[in-house]
């Protein structure tokens, strides 16, 4: 029995053997060791290694190129081209301000649209570590309506030699370092036009300034020599009176490096001194003031009959002082300034010296909570976009300001009370809509009351100026 079972088992195994051998043979290549790779596999391996090494070299080359390549970027700050080491850079920005001006119940003054500032190319850059430049051509013709003559074709054009943060020599056409509101960027002032204190300090002039920041950047200083611009204006001619003006400013931010409540406090003093002369009535505007209201109407100037014997001329010493301060904390900002401009003049052989003064307080508040500051634009957290949810940022500004001419100017007939007001007081409010950090819509209303300035010494009519602006700046 056992033998028969064994014979059956052996017979079944023999019948299955070919199949088993076949199956085992099929499995053999799968179980073969790696050293028996075919030529195709070796070739693939070589190719793969070449590809990997080529990619490695490409990455090394790309990294080397990136380290030495210039960087070009376009952003909300404009177009920037920078060398890999950062020493050579060119930034291209622009400023465009299109205004609409309306006057309420004001005879003799036209409502108008105005291209207030048009600087399509603002070039700033650096050559190496210590040379920088700024070039901003101006294609707009000034504040327009009352023909103030501010027709500069170049806004800024200067070179900086940056010896250190504590000492930079700036030479060229630039803002004279005196007034706080005047020195604030044209794109950042809360109202469409600056106030009375800016009317008493010089605007842009041609000269050289040594400036810098010291004491861990808590104190900035500037000391400059200029041709001498009239109050509130640019220098329009190359130093017609052959006299130079010294301008200086000190500004402290003692808590700048702290993180407390007073971090945003700054205060200082600016001033200028020159001996200005006017040779003839044809260039009185180079040295003597013509003060403008918030509505940009000239409300004070010295008598000018067109002839030497009936025109007030500049006659020597002219100094200005402008104590100033600001405070910024989150969405709240406050700027205050006082300015006095005292100047010797002569009219038909009569010599005199008059001091005019003004003060200004401006408060700002960003309703949407973004931070406001003196030197940086408001950056909306949720910029406006068509179809999007963001509405940008909104701020309100309020301004109180006053101007007082020296009453002696009228007493001595150097100014005509029938044409020039002796006092002006203004109150205004502005609403700014920052759609993006580059695009702003603004509207402001300012009421001004005058003392004098109309025929027979009556008061000039109140001015109600409603100005609006569309601004693109980067």
């Amino acid at each position, binding site marked *: 029995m056992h033998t028969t079972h064994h014979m059956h088992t052996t017979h079944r195994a023999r019948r299955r053997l070919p199949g088993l051998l076949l199956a085992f043979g099929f499995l053999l290549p799968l179980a073969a060791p790696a050293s028996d790779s075919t030529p195709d596999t070796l070739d693939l391996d*070589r190719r793969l*290694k*070449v590809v990997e*090494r*080529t990619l490695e*070299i490409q990455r*090394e080359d790309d990294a080397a190129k990136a380290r030495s390549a210039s960087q070009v970027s376009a952003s909300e700050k404009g177009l920037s081209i920078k060398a890999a080491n950062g020493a050579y850079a060119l930034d291209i920005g622009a400023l465009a301000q299109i205004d609409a001006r309306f006057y309420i119940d004001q005879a003799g003054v036209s409502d108008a649209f105005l291209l207030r500032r048009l600087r399509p190319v603002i070039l700033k850059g650096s050559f190496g570590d210590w040379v920088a430049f700024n070039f901003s051509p101006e294609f707009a013709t000034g504040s327009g309506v009352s023909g103030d003559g501010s027709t500069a074709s170049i806004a800024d054009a200067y070179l900086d030699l940056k010896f250190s943060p504590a000492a930079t020599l700036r030479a060229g056409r630039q803002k004279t370092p005196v007034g706080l509101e005047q020195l604030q960027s044209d794109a950042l002032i809360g109202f469409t036009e600056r106030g009375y204190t800016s009317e008493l300090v010089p605007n842009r002039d041609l000269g050289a300034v040594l400036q810098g920041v010291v004491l861990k950047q808590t104190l900035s200083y500037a000391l400059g020599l200029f041709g001498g611009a009239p109050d509130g204006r640019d220098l329009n001619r190359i130093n017609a009176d052959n006299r130079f003006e010294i301008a200086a400013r000190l500004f402290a931010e003692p808590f700048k490096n702290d993180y407390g409540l007073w971090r945003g406090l700054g205060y200082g003093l600016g001033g200028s001194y020159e001996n200005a002369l006017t040779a003839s009535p044809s260039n009185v505007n180079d040295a003597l003031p013509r003060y403008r209201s918030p509505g940009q109407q000239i409300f004070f100037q010295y008598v000018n009959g067109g002839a030497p014997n009936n025109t007030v001329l500049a006659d020597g010493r002219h100094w200005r002082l402008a104590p100033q301060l600001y405070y910024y904390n989150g969405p709240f900002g406050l700027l205050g300034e006082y300015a006095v401009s005292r100047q010797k003049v002569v009219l038909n052989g009569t010599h005199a010296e008059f001091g005019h003064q003004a003060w200004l307080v401006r408060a700002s508040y960003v309703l949407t909570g973004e931070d406001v500051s003196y030197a940086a634009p408001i950056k909306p957290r949720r910029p406006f976009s068509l179809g999007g949810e963001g509405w940008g940022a909104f701020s309100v500004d309020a301004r109180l300001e006053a101007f007082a001419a020296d009453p002696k100017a009228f007493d001595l007939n150097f100014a005509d009370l029938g044409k020039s007001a002796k006092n002006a007081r203004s109150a205004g409010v502005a609403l700014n809509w920052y759609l993006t950090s580059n695009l702003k819509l603004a509207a402001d209303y300012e009421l001004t009351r005058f003392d004098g300035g109309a025929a027979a010494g009556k008061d000039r009519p109140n001015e109600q100026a409603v100005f609006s602006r569309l601004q693109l700046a980067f």
Partner: protein
Amino acid sequence: MKSFALLAAALAASSAAFADAHLLNVSYDPTRELYQQLNPLFAADWQKRTGSAVTIDVSNGGSGKQARAILDGLEADVATLGIASDIDALAEQGKLLPRDWQKRLPQDSAPYTSTIVFVARKGNPKAIHDWPDLLQSGIQVVTPNPKTSAGGRWAFLAAYLQALHASGGDANKARDYVARLYRAVPVLDSGARGSTTTFAQRGIGDVLLAWENEAHLILKEFGAERFEIVVPKVSVLAQPPVAVVDKYAQKHGNEKLAEAYLRWLYSPEAQEVIAANFYRPTDPAVAARHASEFPPVERLNVSALGGIAKVQKDFFGDGGLFDQIYANK
């Protein structure tokens, strides 16, 4: 008394001129180990001769890149680069030294020479013995890019010259040879050390065309059990030159020191170190003592092609021979 005072003043002045000094040697890639050994010996010799100390800083990198760095303002007192055309660029483009700089030191300002050899896998499985073997079917050759590497340029010139020599001066056959050779190059590194990485570390290629001293460094660093050196019968006479960069040496007050440093490279002491690092010394006595360490090879001179300046323009300039054959690869 007066003459004594004058002498004392002169001595004081001369020692002040050689007060502790710094020298910058901008060199090409493979010489790191060489100058690490040479510089302390020169400093000791200088101290002995003048009583003054000198510190020598060395910058290493691809020869072409180093020349560019000097042109861009790296204030090298001396340049010890891989090929004369890189120093010619300093003279022509940067006006940093006179155009006839090569005549100022012996042997065309080349205190050591070298050549191009083959590095093969151990056992030489592909039986690579000479230049024609590099064109065998399936062989992959690793060599640096001659547009960026001095070693790459010497390798190209070696290949071209030997083909020209073998064909009895037939430029078409020489051109055909290099065209076929570079078709077999799978990866072109920008420098000699990159090619060493490709061949020795990444395992790519069957043979590496290398500076002779680099070949010995590969065996030392990666193991003589993995690679072997094959010296062809014919190769190129590679002459890495040295030069004082006059403009910067004068600016630093280092002219005399810089010249003394380079002249010292021709001294027996320096030549011994050069030989020990597998650069071929130019001093005949030193060369004779080390003859057994340098296999015989007929080294062809680039002067047969019109000189380095001409080959730089004709072979490696934009649109030159290398661009033509590589574009058709």
